[in-house]
Structure formats: C-alpha cells, structure tokens
C-alpha cells in the first residue's frame, strides 16, 4: 500500500478529521456564520452604505430603534376587526383546526402548523394605527402583506395542480415519461429567462396572450401595469416555473403507496375519484405537508419575478419583502434598516425551516 505515497500516514483519526473538516468549517464561518452575526450587528446601527464606505466611523449605534421604526408605529392599537377578511378567515381556520384535531381528523403536526399560521395571522393583522397614529414605515407591512398574498395564491395553486398532474402521469410508459419531462423542464430555467419569456407573453401589444384574446374579440389585458392583474401575472409565472419540483415530490410519494392497496380497493369497486379520495390522499398526507412547507419557504423569498416583471408596481401592489430589503439596502443605502428586515425574514423562514426539519425527522421514523 506504500504505492500511495504520503497522504497523512502518521495522522490519527482526530487529526485526519480536523484536516478534512477545515475547508468546510473555515468557509462556513467566513461566509455564513460571521455574515449572519454581522447582519444582526448592522441592524443595531444607523448605517449608511455610502457614508460608512468613506468613513468606517460614520455609523451610529441605535440599539433596537431600527426594529421599532420598521415594525411599529405611533399610537398602534389592536382590535379583532382591523382587517376583518383576513382575521376572520384566520379565526375560522383556527377553530376548524381545533375541532378537526379534537375529532382526530387531522394529524397533530398539520394541526400545529396550520393552527399557528392562523393564530399569527389573526393576532398580527389586528394591529393598526389608532386615532392620529401611523406606522413609522408605511411600506413595510403592506409589503409583507403582498408577500403573504403571493404565497397564499402560489402555494395552493402549485400544490393542487402538481398533485393532479402527478396522479395522472404516475404510470410507466413512454408518453408519461415525456409528460413528466415537459412539466419539469421549466423548473431548470433561471428566473431571468422565465421573466424574459413571461414579460413578453403578458405584453398587451406583442404578447401571445393578447394575440389570442384579440383573436376571440376581446381587448388585451395590461397584465403587468394594471393593479388588478399584476399579482395574478406574477403568480401565473411562478406556477409555470416551479411546479415541477412539487410534482416530482408527489410522484416520489405516490411510488411509496403499495399497488396492493389499490388492487384490494378495486375489488371493492373503489376506483378513480374514490380511490384517490380514500387511498391516495390519506397516504400522501405527509408529502403534502412537506411540499406545502417547502413551497412557503421558497416563495416567501420571491424577488426576481417582482423585481424584473413589475418593478414592485403598479402602486407597490407587487412589492415583496426581499425586493424591499434589496431596495432599502442598495438604492437607499440604508443598510441598518435593510438588515433589520433581513432578520425579520430570517425569523419567519427559520420557523418554517424548523417545521420542515421536524417533519423530515418524523418521515424517517
């Protein structure tokens, strides 16, 4: 074995491990841990990008004031009917979750997940400026609201469409393999290619959609500049772009369901919709939850679609959290406030990642 020459022959197990771990640990500390902690540090400062670049002492420690300036306002009060639609739907979901759990209709994991989202929405949406009050940052909460709306429209659409497609294409044949490839293909495109295509598709003058609508005698929709359609346009684009991964995860879940169950059920005349309802859905419960959480994490960080297709407009109606962070940091040079919002994003994403991790754990047991 000496032919291998020197490669740490004298190194024991511990030293070998230390040597092998060094590249990762160094890079991990330098490019993730330290920047992350540094981000929290920056968020405690009044930190202008340009000013600090010229003079490192031009930052001012302000404690938690950035958090107050972004999250809070003057004379903020809470009421259960500040945004009735969201709050009451949240309350309804919360109550139904409690009832369904009490009757053992849904698993505890799902109940905790759905229940806490509903509770947070119910409480958070109740805050609003009272008489003579205002938010210190008028754009922040509407931006968060847009992001949540985007997630709330995108995630169920993708989940339902991809699940239906997965069920339909889940069989061994040449044609089905081609279909799977087609539905997955758009997933590998970059966000800029996707927005390039869809910007033109949606164009009222040159767009394919406008051309088809005109053919049937309609008048073209100004998708990206009309407040009523801009969000829908971005959602459609995103559904087209990222449905593939959800479909693949569902296909993997479907493969795990034993054929025997379906055959046994077929003897009881449970086929088609009934088989789907009573066999497929119950067996896919965990996959569905996983896909939903995964999608929430992914789409809460939406940036490119909003940045490139609508520029956050019209009238801020498609402004999303990551785009607001980017603008605050790199257009307004307000790094302190931008990192504060980034910490807010991290807290939300971290919570969902934790849920995802725990679900993954459950999966293996």
């Amino acid at each position, binding site marked *: 074995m000496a032919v291998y020459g020197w490669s*740490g022959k004298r190194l024991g197990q511990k030293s070998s491990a230390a040597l092998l771990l060094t*590249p990762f640990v160094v890079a991990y500390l330098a*490019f993730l841990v330290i920047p992350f902690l540094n981000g929290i540090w920056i968020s405690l400062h009044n930190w202008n990008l340009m000013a600090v670049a010229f003079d490192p002492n031009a930052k001012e420690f302000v404690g938690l004031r950035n958090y107050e300036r972004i999250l809070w306002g003057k004379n903020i009060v809470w009421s259960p009917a500040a945004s009735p639609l969201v709050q009451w739907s949240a309350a309804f979901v919360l109550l139904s979750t409690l009832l369904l759990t009490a009757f053992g209709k849904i698993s505890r994991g799902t109940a905790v997940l759905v229940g806490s989202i509903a509770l947070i929405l119910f409480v958070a949406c109740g805050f609003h400026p009272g008489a003579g009050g205002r938010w210190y940052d008028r754009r922040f909460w509407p931006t968060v609201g847009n992001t949540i709306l985007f997630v709330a429209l995108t995630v169920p659409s993708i989940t339902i469409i991809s699940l239906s497609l997965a069920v339909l294409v889940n069989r061994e044949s040449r044609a089905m393999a081609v279909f799977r490839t087609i539905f997955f293909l758009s997933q590998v495109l970059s966000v800029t290619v996707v927005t390039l295509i869809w910007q033109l598709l949606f164009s009222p003058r040159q767009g394919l959609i406008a051309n088809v609508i005109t053919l049937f005698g309609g008048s073209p929709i100004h998708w990206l500049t009309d407040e009523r359609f801009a969000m829908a346009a971005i959602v459609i684009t995103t559904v087209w772009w990222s449905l593939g991964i959800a479909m693949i995860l569902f296909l993997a879940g479907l493969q795990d369901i034993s054929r025997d169950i379906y055959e046994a059920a077929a003897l009881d005349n449970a086929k088609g919709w009934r088989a789907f309802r009573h066999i497929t859905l119950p067996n896919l419960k965990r996959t569905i939850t996983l896909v939903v959480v995964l999608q929430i994490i992914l789409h809460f960080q939406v940036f490119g679609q909003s940045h490139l297709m609508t520029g956050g407009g019209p009238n801020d109606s498609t402004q999303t959290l990551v785009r607001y962070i980017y603008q605050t940091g790199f257009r307004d040079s307000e790094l302190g406030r931008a990192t504060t919002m980034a910490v807010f*994003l991290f807290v939300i994403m971290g919570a969902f990642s934790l849920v995802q991790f725990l679900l993954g754990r459950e999966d293996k047991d």
Partner: protein
Amino acid sequence: MQSNRSYYWLVTLISLPAFLWLVPTLWMLSLSFQPNDVLARTTSSTFFGLIPLPFTLDNYAALFSYGQTPVWFLNSTIVAVGMTLAVLFVSTTAGYALARLSFPGKNFVIIFCLIGLMVPEQAVFIPLYTMFADFGWHNSYHALILPRVAVPIGVFLMMQFFKAIPRDIEEAARLDGVSWLQIFWHVMLPLARPAMTTLAILTFLYAWNDYLWPLVSAQKREMFTITLGLASIQTNFAQSEGLGRIMASGVIATLPVVVLFLLFQRYVVQAMTAGGTKG
C-alpha cells in the same frame, strides 16, 4: 380492452396542459429564429409566432459578432464550474469526516451545520456585500463563487451517502495500515461518484441560475453572469437591440441547463429533490 382505451383518453387529456406548458419555451425558441424587423411589427407571424417563419439565423450570428453575451456566457461557465468543484471538495471532505471518523465535538459540528440550513441567502447577502466590499473583492470570479462554497446541504448529502457505505471496506483497508486520508481518497471518493454527480448538478444549476448575489456583487458589465446580463437587457423591450436577439440570448442562457437536464434527467430530479427537501 377497456383499460387501453382509458389510457389513450388519459394521454389525450394530459396532452393539452403539456402543450400549454411547452408554449412559453417554444415561443422563445421560435422568436429567436425570426427577423427583428418582422418582430417589431408582429410577434404572431405564423401560428401565433410559434412556428419560426420567416426564418433567420441572424440573431445568433449577431450575438457572437458583437455584444457581451459570449463574455457573460463564459463568466457563467467559470463561476458555475468553479463553484461546483469547490463545493464538491468542501462537501466530500467534511461529509466523510462527519460520517466515518469519530472525534470529540462531532455532534456539535453537525448541529452547527443544521442551523445553517435555516439561514436563507437573502438574510445574509447585505453583510456579505459589506464584507466583500471591505476586501475590495467585488467584480471578480471569487466574489461570485465564495459565498456559496460552504453549503450545509452539500455536506449532509455526502454525509448521508458515506454513512450508507458498509464498514468492512474501510476496516479491511485499516488492517493493511492505510491511513484515513488514503481511505477517503482512494476508497471512498470513487464509491461516492453518484452522490457527487447529484451534488455537482445541484450546485451547477444553482450557480448558473443565481440572480440576487451576482446582482449586488457584479456591477461591471464585463463581470456579469449570463443570468444577470439577461436581466439587464430585458428591462425595456422597446429600446432594446431587437426582440429576436434578446430571445436568442435567452435561448443561449438556457441551453446548458436544458442539455444538462435532458442528459442527466434522473440526477437532476434527484438533485432538485434533495436540494428542495433539505436545503
């Protein structure tokens, strides 16, 4: 043959959404083969523009004779290949150490990495920007590569793979007096080729398609990646060099990932599933 008939029904049923799903990509491809002066008037010459008639190759010729698309393409290639090699190196070494060697503090390192999975890129890109600015690193290849070298997902992917390899292979080598590093290099790495392929594809796709970090780090046009360059020419169609050319850039930008996908479909699906469920 009732089941056969229902199968054909199914194929027909799915054909429609499948065709619709293909339309945007096909349209881009078709427009890239049409003359710019025609496209300035109408984008629906033949069958809504889905068939490239009138046909021309000028847009592709123009891309390579002037403009920066070839430079951007080269930048993307360097960044994606560089990042892939770096991630493979860092992930296999750390993954092997965590999976097969015992040393004090191992669980701490694993948990420490797990926490990293929860930190989204968007939460650290501003401090990364200031750090790289302090070093004067922006507008360089290493600035585009380094932030994504230490990805916990890569380490976990390799760790799980190495854990599944039977112990006796290693023990036989140990009895022969082979060192741990030699085992890693000569025994483990060759076995890990499938996992490494998956990780390489995941990283390559990520690097090729990443938008936010190149957007803040690369300000000079000659340092743009193709993904970033494409964003810079699409902001205003009317003032641009012509629709056909933009679409040709889009096709060129897409070609590597689509070829990768069609050649290694199984690995791509695996990679994206792994990246999706764990990172």
